[in-house]
């Protein structure tokens, strides 16, 4: 039997493709075809396929944003019947909750992530500062100023700027949470016209224009990773998974001088970190449920973690999904393990920000319309970063277009 697996082209997924011999040894009758795509393309392709019941894929890599929506629509096969040995209860509750709708687990987490501050210990030292475990935004600003040395192409801070709900808006939404801003009030009225959003965006723009790298409006996770790895960033606030890349001496020129801290806050309660997981789900249309399940089970099992550890070392195992991993003493030796776990635990999708919100999701709003709105808003903020418009104008546009879309979708009259 051949199953087709759609995955995102990130390092953990690619690594898995290299370890398939183990799977084939255990399931000699199953053949796996990979479709590896860039995140946005992947999302478009699988959504289109699942929504139209195209049946092209048997296993899909999907994010925490999609799972509840799709699960609710009955588009995914329930994974409640995974065998005992899988140990569902070992999954981190924060992650598992996000994948469960009405008691049915609709996807198995492959890795989970939050966001945190990664910084250069050497530069920090040179600047005469010390990074606390839980910094504030004010400190980040101070540190960024101190570390920036544009003549030598060292930029104090690298942040996402590329437009997209999963790109710059992931960061900005999380940051906004720590500023007390929110996407919608309880009547689904967009909130970009609030003081809190204005502060968020102004601070972001100030950080980036003064201490950020050139071309930041086109930088996403990957671009920033490349910058950080080549020693061009003093600090980088991004996904916790990046930690294993920046500390990998094969790829990173700064591997031995990276420190980690929790995402900053403003003393209002929420920190500016998000919660995300890439999960494996099985679309309801597939004819090959058993084979697909076998694969999902294998890929998200403890054994797989052990397999990676044995082949590539503990630093490279997919993080953020299982309690047991963080209890493993070998893993605890990994420098970023603790900070990752803390970050994940500190995010609360049900209460992401200071005020009450009608939606679930830290750095996204779990409604179908959000992809479009988030991307369109992201474009406005990206344009502001590129200097094509002012912050006020960007916020104004964001407010208007969000109102428009919400009106069209019928949330508000």
């Amino acid at each position: 039997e051949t199953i087709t697996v759609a995955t995102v082209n990130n390092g953990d997924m690619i690594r898995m493709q290299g370890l398939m011999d183990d799977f084939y040894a255990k399931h000699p009758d199953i053949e796996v075809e990979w479709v590896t795509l860039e995140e946005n393309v992947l999302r478009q392709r699988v959504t289109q396929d699942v929504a139209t019941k195209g049946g092209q894929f048997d296993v899909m890599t999907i994010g925490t944003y999609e799972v509840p929506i799709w699960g609710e629509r009955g588009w995914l096969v329930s994974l409640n019947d995974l065998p005992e040995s899988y140990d569902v209860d070992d999954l981190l509750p924060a992650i598992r909750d996000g994948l469960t709708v009405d008691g049915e687990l609709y996807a198995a987490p492959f890795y989970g992530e939050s966001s945190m501050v990664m910084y250069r210990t050497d530069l920090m030292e040179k600047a005469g500062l010390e990074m606390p475990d839980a910094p504030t935004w004010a400190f980040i600003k101070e540190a960024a100023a101190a570390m920036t040395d544009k003549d030598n192409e060292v930029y104090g801070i690298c942040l996402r700027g590329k437009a997209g709900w999963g790109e710059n808006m992931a960061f900005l939404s999380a940051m906004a949470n720590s500023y007390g801003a929110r996407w919608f009030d309880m009547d689904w009225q967009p909130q970009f016209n609030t003081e809190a959003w204005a502060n968020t965006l102004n601070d972001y723009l100030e950080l980036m224009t003064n201490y950020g790298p050139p071309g930041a409006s086109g930088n996403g996770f990957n671009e920033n990773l490349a910058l950080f790895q080549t020693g061009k960033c003093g600090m980088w606030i991004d996904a916790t998974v990046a930690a294993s890349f920046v500390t990998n001496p094969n790829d990173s020129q700064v591997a031995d001088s990276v420190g980690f801290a929790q995402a900053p806050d403003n003393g209002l309660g929420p920190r500016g970190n998000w919660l995300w997981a890439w999960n494996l789900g099985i679309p309801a249309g597939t004819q090959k449920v058993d084979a697909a399940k076998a694969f999902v089970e294998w890929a998200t099992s403890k054994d797989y973690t052990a397999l990676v550890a044995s082949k590539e070392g503990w630093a490279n195992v997919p993080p953020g999904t299982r309690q047991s991993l963080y209890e493993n003493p070998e893993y605890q030796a990994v420098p970023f393990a603790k900070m990752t776990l803390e970050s994940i635990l500190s995010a609360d999708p049900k209460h992401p920000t200071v005020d009450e919100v009608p939606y679930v999701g830290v750095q996204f709003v779990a409604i179908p319309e959000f992809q479009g709105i988030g991307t369109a808003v992201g474009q406005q903020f990206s344009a502001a970063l590129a200097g094509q418009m002012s912050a006020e104008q960007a916020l104004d546009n964001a407010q208007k277009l969000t109102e428009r879309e919400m009106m069209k979708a019928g949330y508000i009259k």
Partner: protein
Amino acid sequence: MATKHSRMSARLMISPAVLLLLGWMLIPLSMTLYFSFLRYNLLMPGMEEFTGLTNYRFFLSDPAFFAALWNTIALVVGVLVVTVIGGILLALLLDQPFFGQGIVHILVIAPFFVMPTVSALVWKNMFMNPVNGLFAHAAKALGLQPFDFLSSAPLASIIGIVSWQWLPFATLILLTALQSLDQEQLEAAEMDGAPWIKRFWYIMLPHLARAITVVILIQTIFLLSVFAEILVTTNGGPGTASTNLTYLIYMQSLLQFDVGGGSAGGVVAIILANIVAIFLMRMIGKNLDA
């Protein structure tokens, strides 16, 4: 040629092509048209309902629509201007005798074979990247501030990339046309006392008119639907600075999965494309018959 028999066979033989294209056009088009009147989001199945012109109202009142319209025109016209003028100059150069003509032809034609995705990736990362790109290196070597092409001048950068891909095509057609110019006409003009520049203006350029029309027609067809280059380099941004109609519809229907809105956009784009088509056909029809 014109016997009844041959006319009948002609009709028979053209019909597969016509029927297939008709099907290819009408079936999806009517579906698109139908969808455009629905409130239809892929993510919310079962909620399709007739909404009349709502989708059109939203699409046409979207500020991004006008930006996209303008960007589409700028992109098409920009690339046409660059490739036609560049193509003429290049064709004039390549028409001269020089050593290694064959190899230079090969070098010049090469971009035409490159996939749009690849060329966009290569240009974006290895040349236009403001930190690690070659242009940035060059600027720094000259003591200049690296220019951030894709965020400061996104549309122009895309025009540049697309022009690079289409320049060979224009050059080749124009070169062939130039070589087909009757040498005696040039000699006659020379005898008539026309210096080179006037020979170019009065003899060569009019001779190239047909070829230029063809270049414009073919390129316009492809340029109206430029997509991969935008997706890869700027994602239509910053803001909507490099969003063209194709990309805008893509965002509507495939990022937001708003099939209804996307279909309305598609219908609008089809109408606009047909306006362009009619305009072009007029031009080409006139020029090709002459």
